[in-house]
């Protein structure tokens, strides 16, 4: 049983990802099957267990709060599709139709 069109659009919007063409149909069906597959976990008895995020036996290890040299700005900006005067350039953020 595939995901509904509405469910898929919701996920696309959340993930800022647009699917197109035949991959859309295929993914709708495959995602439903995968979700079915992982749903089996709900049958496992996990009463009393705290969700575990980290496996290490130690607490978070911070570094000293000292200024260290960081990445050279020009080198970082050089990787960007568009930049100007030390800023990344993007389409208008505030726009009547956009967001």
């Amino acid at each position, binding site marked *: 049983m595939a995901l509904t069109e509405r469910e898929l659009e919701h996920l696309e919007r959340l993930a800022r990802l647009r699917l197109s063409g035949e991959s859309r149909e295929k*993914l709708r069906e495959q*995602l439903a099957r995968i979700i079915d597959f992982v749903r089996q976990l709900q049958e496992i008895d996990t009463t009393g267990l705290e969700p575990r995020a980290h496996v290490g036996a130690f607490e978070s290890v911070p570094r000293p709060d000292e200024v260290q040299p960081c990445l050279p700005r020009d080198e970082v900006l050089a990787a960007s*599709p568009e930049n100007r005067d030390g800023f*990344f350039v993007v389409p208008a953020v505030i726009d009547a*139709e956009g967001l």
Partner: protein
Amino acid sequence: MEELVQYSIFELQELYRKREVGVVEVVRAYLESIAARESSVKAFLRVFPETALDEAAKLDAKGYDGSALFGVPIALKDNLCTRGIRTTCASKILEGYRPPYDATVVERLKAAGSVVVGKTNLDEFAMGSSCENSAFQVTRNPWDEEYAPGGSSGGSAAAVAADLALASLGSDTGGSIRQPASLCGVVGLKGTYGRVSRYGLVAFASSLDQIGPFARDVRDCALVMEAIAGQDVRDATTIPEPSPDLHGNLEKGLDGLRIAFPSDLGKWEMDSVVKDIATRTIDDLIRDAVPVEGVTLPGMETSIATYYILANAEASSNLARYDGVKYGLRSGSESLLNMYEETRGEGFGEEVKRRILLGTYVLSSGYYDAYYAKAQQVKALICAQFEELFTTHDLVFLPTSPTPAFKLGEKLDDPIAMYLSDIFTTPANIAGLPAISVPAGLSPNGLPIGMQLIAAWGQEAKLMRGAFGLERMYRFRERFVRGAGGRGGRNAGH
């Protein structure tokens, strides 16, 4: 010149120490090997002959200095950042990306004297088990080029198997070092979670990802691991204790180690030859008076589902940064949203999109508790069960992969079939435990099969000597891998 590729890291260090060979000669031998075989194996996304020879010349000028990996030609999976050198994660979205920094492991490898010869192919963003999800090329298994090398670190595994590099680095989130190691007949190691710094590893699933080495034997693998392991202030999840010596006690082998194996091996779907090798190993261990016991292994029923929830949830978060703003591909310009959607729609391959959407689903409002939080509880259960098991046993023995290499194209239509190939590898990722694949035998049509060991948290030393013991039992290289240039069951494409 060709014979130079036959030497292990350990043997080569001896030759360097005695000044019987120079780094330029060795690097040249590997570059010749690449020239001869790479066009058919396609392990590399890019090779650096000039830089490698330059580095080699500098090392020769300096002379052998006892550094751990002096003059060792090494290949790096293309999700490891190399400053100024393209790092693509085999994705269109990062096609031209040049990182402004080296990953910690790259810095450490260079400090240890090794020579990077190239960046290897992978499944896009490390998502896959066959290297077929790369946006750029398909890598072939050097043992038979119609077959997959495994994934996601297929390029790194194939490079070592085909003598295109003496060792390589890969990354393992759900089995992506161990499974290709098994399919390509080489040793592949994933350490305890936190043993190796992830700084500079392009993130897939931050609570699971670990970088690790491929090598032709256990001792070489130990030497590379020692060079890259250890705390790093730039990765707060690295273990603050000193890393163990991994090669000093190898000769002890399986002495004094208590082994657990899955008592219900018969119920898991796998190739009969994989089952045969596993059961024969257990019989041989019993014959050699090694204490072995059949147990119910933690996580076998649940680890794939747990893994695919946790890993994909974390991936959906980690891959949000590919938005066309700071680096990589940019498409669409009507609006910011349009740019995000077009960039990501165009730049990501299907498997990546599948996993991001699944991850988004399990984290979304209304589903978070049922899926993500639940998976973390199951993770807690699996961790506790392993801790319990390791109070009475030192190592867990089981197959690495349910099958030898499958044909290219065979599993592409069914993602779940592909995911099931991770059944034996995901438990160690979920519990953060060190695990290794050691080549054990060949299938009837000449494809390698590896066997796996898992150790308790932090116990890589026991893991490595257990692996050395298995390696001695299997004699894989002696039986199946011939001399220089003639490596790896030469049927096709040689």
